[in-house]
C-alpha cells in the first residue's frame, strides 16, 4: 500500500509519467519512470533497456539530491526507489510541486503578452546559473528546453529547471544508448549531432539550448526551427544556417543582451561565451 495518494496525472513523456500526489499532508509531483517497454519482446533487450533506464533514473535522483534548490527543482518527501507501479516495474520519487506553468505552455498561450526585458533577462540568468552549477562538477544538462522549465509565481525562483534525466557527466561513463537522441532536436547544439560528440561536449552545448529557449520565450518563435519543418530541415538549419538574430524581433531589448543571445547560438562552441562568470556579469550589467 503506497503511503501517498495520487490525485491526478499531470504529465507524460517517453518512459516518464508525472502525478500530482498528496503525501504527509503536502502536495508534490510524483515521478514514475517505467523500467519496461511492452513493445520489446526480446527478454535480453528488455533487460538492457531496464538497466539503462534504472541507471538514468538513479542518476537523476542523485543529481537532484546534489543540485536541487534555487533554479533547480528540489526533491520531495519520497526518496528514489523501485516499486511495481500499476503493474509495471518502475523507479519512483517525488519532487516539490512548483506553482506555475511549464514555459512551453506560457510561450504557446496566445493570450500571453510578450515578456518584457526584465523577465527575459531573469530566464537567461537562471539558466546560466543552472549551467554554471552543473558544470562546476563537469555535468552537462543536455535537455534544456521550454518543456523542462517551470515559470513559477515565486519571486525568488521565477524559473525553475527540471528533468536532469539525460544529464551527462563528462568525466563519467555514458548512460544513454547511442540510439537515444539526447535532448529535443530543435534545442540541441550543432556539435551534439556529431556521432562522437560525447568526447568533446561541455557546458557550451547547454548555452546553445538555453539561448534557443530564451529566444523563443522573447519572440514566440524558435531561432532555427520554423513552422512545420521536417526533422531533416531542422538538422540542416542547425548545422548550416545562421540562427535568426534577436535584435530585429525585439528592438526594445538592449543590443548587448541581444548580442549575447546571438553569440550563444553560434554554430561553433568556440564562438559562444566560454566564461560563465563573465557572461553573468554582462547580463547583470
Amino acid at each position, binding site marked *: 500500500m503506497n503511503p501517498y495518494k495520487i490525485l491526478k496525472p499531470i504529465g507524460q513523456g517517453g518512459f516518464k509519467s508525472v502525478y500530482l500526489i498528496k503525501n504527509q499532508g503536502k502536495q508534490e509531483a510524483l515521478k514514475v519512470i517505467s523500467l519496461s517497454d511492452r513493445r520489446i519482446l526480446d527478454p535480453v533487450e528488455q533487460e538492457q533497456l531496464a538497466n539503462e533506464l534504472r541507471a538514468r533514473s538513479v542518476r537523476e535522483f542523485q543529481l537532484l539530491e546534489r543540485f536541487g534548490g534555487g533554479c533547480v527543482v528540489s526533491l520531495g518527501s519520497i526518496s528514489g526507489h523501485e516499486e511495481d507501479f500499476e503493474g509495471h516495474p518502475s523507479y519512483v520519487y517525488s519532487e516539490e510541486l512548483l506553482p506555475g506553468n511549464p514555459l512551453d505552455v506560457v510561450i504557446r498561450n496566445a493570450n500571453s503578452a510578450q515578456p518584457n526585458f526584465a523577465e527575459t533577462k531573469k530566464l537567461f540568468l537562471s539558466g546560466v546559473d543552472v549551467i554554471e552549477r552543473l558544470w562546476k562538477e563537469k555535468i552537462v544538462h543536455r535537455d534544456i528546453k521550454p518543456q523542462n522549465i517551470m515559470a513559477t509565481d515565486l519571486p525568488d525562483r521565477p524559473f525553475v529547471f527540471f528533468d536532469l534525466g539525460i544529464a551527462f557527466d563528462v568525466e563519467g561513463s555514458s548512460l544513454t544508448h547511442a540510439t537515444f537522441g539526447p535532448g529535443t532536436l530543435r534545442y540541441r547544439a550543432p*556539435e551534439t549531432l556529431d556521432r562522437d560528440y560525447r568526447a568533446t561536449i561541455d557546458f557550451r552545448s547547454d548555452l546553445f539550448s538555453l539561448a534557443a529557449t530564451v529566444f523563443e520565450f522573447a519572440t514566440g518563435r524558435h531561432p532555427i526551427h520554423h513552422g512545420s519543418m521536417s526533422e531533416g530541415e531542422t538538422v540542416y538549419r542547425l548545422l548550416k544556417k545562421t540562427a535568426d538574430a534577436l535584435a530585429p524581433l525585439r528592438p526594445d531589448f538592449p543590443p548587448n543582451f541581444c548580442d549575447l543571445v546571438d553569440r550563444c547560438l553560434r554554430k*561553433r*562552441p568556440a564562438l559562444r561565451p566560454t566564461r560563465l562568470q563573465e557572461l553573468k556579469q554582462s547580463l547583470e550589467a
Partner: protein
Amino acid sequence: MQILAQHGYGEGEKVSRGLEHGLLDGVVIGPKNIRLSALKGKIDGWEKNSPQARILFDPQYYATVVAQEEGARLGYLVSDYSDYFSPKTYKDLRRERNIRDELNKALSFQLENLKLSEAIVPGIMIQDGLHSESSSIAKNFLEIGAEEAKESGNDAFLTLALGQSCFREMSALVDFVDEVTGFDLPVKGIYLLVETSRHLGANPWYIPEILKGRMYLNYAFAQAGFEVINGFSMFSSPFLSAVGATGISCGWFDTLRYFSLDPFRASVGGGHRPNRRYLSKALWSRLDLATIAPDLGRNHWIMNEYSGDSRFESGEADECDEALQHWHALQVMSESILNQQGVSARLQFLWDSLNQAEIHRSHLPALSLPKFKDQIDGCRTALRGFCELAELPLSL
C-alpha cells in the same frame, strides 16, 4: 592594439629607439642570442627609459625538442638559461608530472631573474598535425601551464605554437579551437606562434589557409576573453588586429619575422639578411625603393608620411631605420583598421584597402608583378574563408 618588438640580439638600438619614439608598446625577448647578464641590463634600461613598456620573455622552450639534433644551434640557451632549458624528447614530456616540473622551472626562472610585465608559460610546437603526439603534449602544456601560472599568482600568457601542418585540414583546426577554448585556462592570454617558414615561399604570410586559420585563432580566443599576442607576425598583423588581436610582434631579421624551428636546427645554407625595404601602407607591400626611385617624386603617396621618410628617399636608411619604419607602418595600418567599428566593418575596410592597393599598383609598371596579384588574391581568399569560419554575415 599593441606593437611589440621581437627581440633577438643584444646589440643595436632598434628596440630602445622604437620605445622612445612611441612606435613600440613593448618587447618580446628571445634569449637564444643574448647572454643572461646582458639581457638583465637591457631590461633595466627599457624599464628605466620606458616604464610603460610591456616586457615579455619568450622562453623558446619549443626548441628543446630539436636541441638533440646534430648541429643544433642553441646559442646561449644551454649555457645561460639551463635553469629551465635542456634537450628533450616527446617521451620526456608524456607524463603530467614531468610537464609540471618543466613549467615550474620556466616560470620560476622568469619570476626570479627578470623584471617582466607578465610571464610567458612555455609550450612545444605542434609539428605533425593536430592529431599527433606533439598536439597532445602541447594541450597538456596549456592546461597544466594555466594551473601553474594561477598557482604562482602572476599574470601569464600561454604559448600556443602551431606548425604549418596544423592548417592543412581546417575542420581539424576548428575542432582544436573548440576543444582548447573549453579548457579551464585562468590566464590573461595566449602567446600565439604560427610557423611561417620562408621555405613556404617568398611571402608565407599570404598563404590563404594559414592566414585564415591565424585570423580564426585570434578571433576565437579574443571572443573567449583572452588577450592574444602574436609573435613573429609581421605582415599578417593588420589582418589579426581586425579580428581581435591584442598585440603583434616582429623584428628586423628574418628570424624575427618568420616563426620556425629552423633557426635552432643545423644551418642548411648561408644566412640571409633582408634587403632594405619600405613598408607602404597604400600598396600593402614592402618595397625596394630603388626599383621605383625615378618615379618616386611623382608618386609620393607611396610613402606613409613617416618622420624618417627622407632617409629612405635619400638612400641613407639603415637597418634600424627600416625596423622603425616597419613598426610605424604596422601601427598606422592597424590604427586605420581599428578606427572602424566592429569586426565586420574592419574586414570590409581591409577588403577595400586591398582593392585600392591593387589599383595603385597598376599605375606603377615597375611594381606590376604577377606575384603581387597572387598575394592580394591570397588575402581575399583568406578574408572570405575567415568570415565563413567565424559565422560572420559579411559578403566579400
